[in-house]
Structures are given as structure tokens and as C-alpha cells.
């Protein structure tokens, strides 16, 4: 894959439902009830059930993998959990969008910046990956 500084990466969009969160809880072994119980989520001051931060990061990782094709090319991948992704109890859920841009290319390594949003909110911050090119 050839990378050029400033190049935009094709935005990908993912839907997230309550069922996805339950499935992810099992797959990741993270059963914190704020990710499946409205009652517990509200009791700790959240607006409702929220996605695991690591689930949202996994969606960003999916986009990254589609862009780089080969996950072995990824040297580092990091993010900050900026805002919770609230997931309503319906069949539609919510949408997470992942865009990206090549920040720099140097010494065989490209640094990518990812933009991860849900609605108008930037839900992940400082999301960057370094990939071999």
C-alpha cells in the first residue's frame, strides 16, 4: 500500500445495537452492566446504556484493517475515550463513523489520524495508528 501525506481514507460507517454490545461483552469478557443494563447505567449518572470504549475502538480497528489490508503492517494503534456512545434499546441502534487521514510518511512508516464520530459527537479522541508502508 502506498501512502501519501494528506491523503484522505475512505470513511466507513458501522451500526451498533444492544445485541452487538451483548455479543461483544461475551467475546471480550467485559460484563460491566453499564453496557447492557439501563438501570445500572442510569444509577451511575449515564444517560443510558453505552458501548464499551473498546468496542468503539474495535470498530476503528476494523476501518484501519480495511485501509491497510494487512494487520501485520500495524505497528501501533491508540485512542482516548472522549465521549460515551449511547446505544438505544431499539432495532436500529446508533451509528459510528470512522474516517482517516495520512498525517506523515517517513522512514517506511505512515502515521494515520482517525476521526471517530457518532451523531455530532467525536467519541474517540487522539486516535492514531503507525503502519509500515
Amino acid at each position: 500500500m502506498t501512502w501519501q501525506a494528506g491523503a484522505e481514507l475512505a470513511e466507513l460507517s458501522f451500526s451498533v445495537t444492544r445485541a452487538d454490545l451483548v455479543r461483544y461483552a461475551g467475546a471480550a469478557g467485559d460484563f460491566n452492566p453499564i453496557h447492557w443494563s439501563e438501570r445500572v447505567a442510569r444509577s451511575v449518572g449515564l444517560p443510558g446504556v453505552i458501548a464499551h470504549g473498546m468496542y468503539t475502538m474495535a470498530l476503528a480497528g476494523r476501518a484501519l484493517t480495511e485501509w491497510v489490508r494487512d494487520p501485520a503492517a500495524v505497528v501501533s494503534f491508540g485512542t482516548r475515550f472522549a465521549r460515551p456512545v449511547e446505544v438505544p434499546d431499539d432495532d436500529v441502534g446508533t451509528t459510528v463513523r470512522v474516517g482517516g487521514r495520512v498525517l506523515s510518511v517517513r522512514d517506511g512508516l505512515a502515521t494515520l489520524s482517525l476521526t471517530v464520530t457518532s451523531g455530532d459527537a467525536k467519541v474517540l479522541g487522539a486516535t492514531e495508528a503507525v503502519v509500515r508502508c
Partner: protein
Amino acid sequence: MSLGTGLVGRTFPPTDPYLVSREKIAEFNLAIGAAPVGGGSTAPLTFPIVVAFPAMAALLADPDAGIELEHVLHRDQRFEQVRPVRAGDRLTATLTVDSVRSLAGVDLVSTRTEVDTTDGEHVVTAYATLVHRDGGP
């Protein structure tokens, strides 16, 4: 009560070996909606959390650490990988507390978890910062 600096530099014992199966990779891929990579034997990028999470849980459960679970938030996460996790890997996770910083009533606990095969091959390092809010009145 803020966390003591006695935590800094502390390394917890490695987690019990975890054998990565194609079935577990498929389950994780299905959960995040990802297509199989490497014929289904290459794990997705954030998969190492499956192995690192129990190491973090051990830190949170440690009575000497003084961390109260209900006051913890995951602030950030970064993976530095030598290679992706693959089916057949037998992995352990070893967590070290790199730093504890106090900031406006919260403690930022920065951790580094080395994920290695039981043959001693280093596969990935998972860095996480946990925010611990003051639980006192």
C-alpha cells in the same frame, strides 16, 4: 483518598496462559462485525484486550492498590504490536503500573501490559490509563 505512589513500578504476576483458538477469534470477529483475516487464524487489532483484561482486573481487585472499581474509568488505550495475535498462541499478560498522577481530584493510573507467548516471544504491549475518581465525601 488518592492512590498511594507505592503502586508505581509495581509489576503483577503474569496471568494464567491463554490458548488462542480459531473459534475465539471467530467469536471476536463476529462481535465486531469484522471479516476473517489470514484464513481466520489472525486476530483483529484489539483482540489482545481479551488477554490483557484479566491483568487489569487483577490490579483493580488488589486490596493493596486501593482502587475502588465503581470509581474507575478507562481513559485511553494503545497497542504496540510486534505481530498480530494468531490462533495457536499461548499467551500471558504481565501488567506494570508505570505512573500515578493526581489531577483535580482524580488519579490517572498508567499501566503497561506485556503480552508474550509462553515460549518467551513478545507479541504486543497494551498501554492503558485508568481514571480513578476520589471516592471520599
